[in-house]
């Protein structure tokens, strides 16, 4: 492989890795949206919170793997508490109030993080097992990014299995389609909401922990990821997991190749893409209903 091809392939894998992390964040968001009808603005705040949790666990124990396990779960617990004690109380008032409540939660988390951990960039080391480069067809590539792709794929397969092969997944999919009807069939939908919210924040947390060693841990982490994740959900279609996967990968590739070819325009490429898609199809690529 000559140098140019190697560079393109490397950029491609970069894009894939980013796209997969994006999918982890966006899939939680799109599940929550499809089910509860709310755009969880605080979602990326959870993403960032998990990175801080992981940093704290590593600072205490020095074990990244423990952080990878514990931090997303801790984040999910926070998410479940937010759902149970804040969102559920005002569910009857309509979407506007839920949406603005999540704005409040986002402000709260993003500022609380600064209170506890300060505003500096906190480094998080890549675990020794995943350090270094691997050789792919004569090209050196950082192992950790491949690990991210693998981890995201594993979660994706697990999620798909739960959603499409189990009874629980069937109920969740039914509730995404029509929550009121599922409730009428005798299933405890509020509890289901709580569960989905927890799973969604868990996935956001996992993505946050996975990306923390690359980007370091800092308060702007949520902004960096957040806009992209929202765009993925909207362009892919509200509540559509397949759409989220496709658009997340497109988005990842678009950003990595965009920087290479049209570096001046790279930050706006996704917005232009989104504007075009929504102008033609307001429900997003795979969405069936308007959000």
């Amino acid at each position, binding site marked *: 492989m000559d140098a140019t091809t190697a560079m393109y392939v490397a950029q491609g894998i970069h894009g894939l890795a980013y796209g997969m992390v994006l999918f982890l964040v966006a899939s939680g968001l799109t599940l929550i*949206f499809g089910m509860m009808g709310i*755009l969880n603005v605080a979602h990326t705040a959870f993403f960032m919170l998990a990175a801080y949790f992981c940093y704290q666990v590593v600072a205490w124990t020095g074990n990244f793997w423990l952080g990878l396990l514990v931090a997303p779960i801790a984040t999910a617990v926070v998410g479940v508490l937010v759902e149970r004690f*804040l969102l559920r*109380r*005002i569910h*009857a*008032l*309509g*979407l*506007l*109030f839920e*949406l*603005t*409540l999540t*704005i*409040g*939660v*986002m*402000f*709260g988390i*993003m*500022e*609380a993080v*600064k*209170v506890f951990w300060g505003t500096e960039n906190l480094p998080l080391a890549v675990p020794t097992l995943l350090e270094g480069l691997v050789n792919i067809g004569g090209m050196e590539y950082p192992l950790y990014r491949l690990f991210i792709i693998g981890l995201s794929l594993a979660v994706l397969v697990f999620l798909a299995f739960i959603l499409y092969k189990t009874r629980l997944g069937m109920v969740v999919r039914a509730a995404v389609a029509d929550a009121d009807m599922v409730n009428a069939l005798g299933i405890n939908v509020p509890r289901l909401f709580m569960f989905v919210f927890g799973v969604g924040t868990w996935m956001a947390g996992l993505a946050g922990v996975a990306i923390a060693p690359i980007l370091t841990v800092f308060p702007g982490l949520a*902004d960096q990821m957040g*806009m992209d994740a*929202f*765009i993925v959900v*909207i362009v892919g279609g*509200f509540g559509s997991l397949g759409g989220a996967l496709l658009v997340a990968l497109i988005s990842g590739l678009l950003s990595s190749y965009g920087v290479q070819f049209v570096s*001046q325009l790279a*930050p*706006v490429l996704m*917005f*232009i893409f*989104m*504007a075009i898609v*929504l*102008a033609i199809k*307001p*429900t*997003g690529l795979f969405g069936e209903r*308007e*959000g």
Partner: protein
Amino acid sequence: MKKRVKGIVWGITLVILVLYPWLFGIYFTNVLVTCAIFALFAVSYNLLLGYTGLFSFGHAMFFGAGGYATALALTHIEGCPLLVALLFGFLGAVVLALLLSPIVARLAHSAFAMLHLAFSMLLYTLALKLRGITGGEDGIGGFPIPPFHIPGIVSVDMTDPLHFYYFAMAVLGGSLWIAWFLTKTPFGQIIVSVRDNAKRVDYLGFKVPHTKAIIYALSCGFAGIAGSIYAMFQDLISASALGIAQSFAPIVMTMVGGVIAFSGPIWGAAIFALIEELTTRYTERVQLVEGLILIIVILFFPGGFVHLLAVVKGKWLEFVRGKWLGSIKGKWFGKQS
């Protein structure tokens, strides 16, 4: 009797506003101008959210468009009069709104909100990148502020903060009054009907997309005026005026002040000015306080400060929780069932 009380209250308010710079000094005068700018910004936002039921995540782009239009006019047009610069701000925002309205008037709810986010981020990025026009991160600053000049009658120097205070308050107050008047016209009734039941408005023979586009352009025009005054007040406009934080400000102010009333966003702007004044002395984490207040308000007083006022005023019977909740339930993109 009630009308007389109202008249007295308005009279006292006016007297206080006129005497304000002498009572509180120049620092708090500037605080009040900033607060009034955000009050108009938030009210313009509430014309969309509270009255028409359109939720936007990118209202700051109209604020910024107004600010940039004014700043560019004052920088590049030799001897541009003050009111013409203000008009440029208004028109800049309206033109932007009219350009967007064919796309956004078809959308609803989250897609509407997020497309605005996308466009505002697009403009934000462009404002950072097009250094030749917008000055990049530094923004446009140091442009001359022309005197308020009516040929042969009067010419007032606007670089004096005191004079600018009266000018800004007159423009902002006037705009607020026009916005309020707008909601009392038949057109104001139609936009509320569009919020409550767009389909029925359509059956009655009104054109829903046109109505939406008109109120959208007007709301954006008011935001443009707020941005224009802001640019002249600061003598600077930078990309942060287009940013996401600037877009969240009117949402939070409207919700805390009260989405259910015209005066809500004004209360919201005042409350946030007060919070900022009080908290910046003790902590840098102003947004933490604001976020917590937002959560508490939504949990316990979904109607915001005006809800609280109504309760305090003793209108218990009207605002018994159940009945009152029924009256706001589902009105703002709630379930249509």
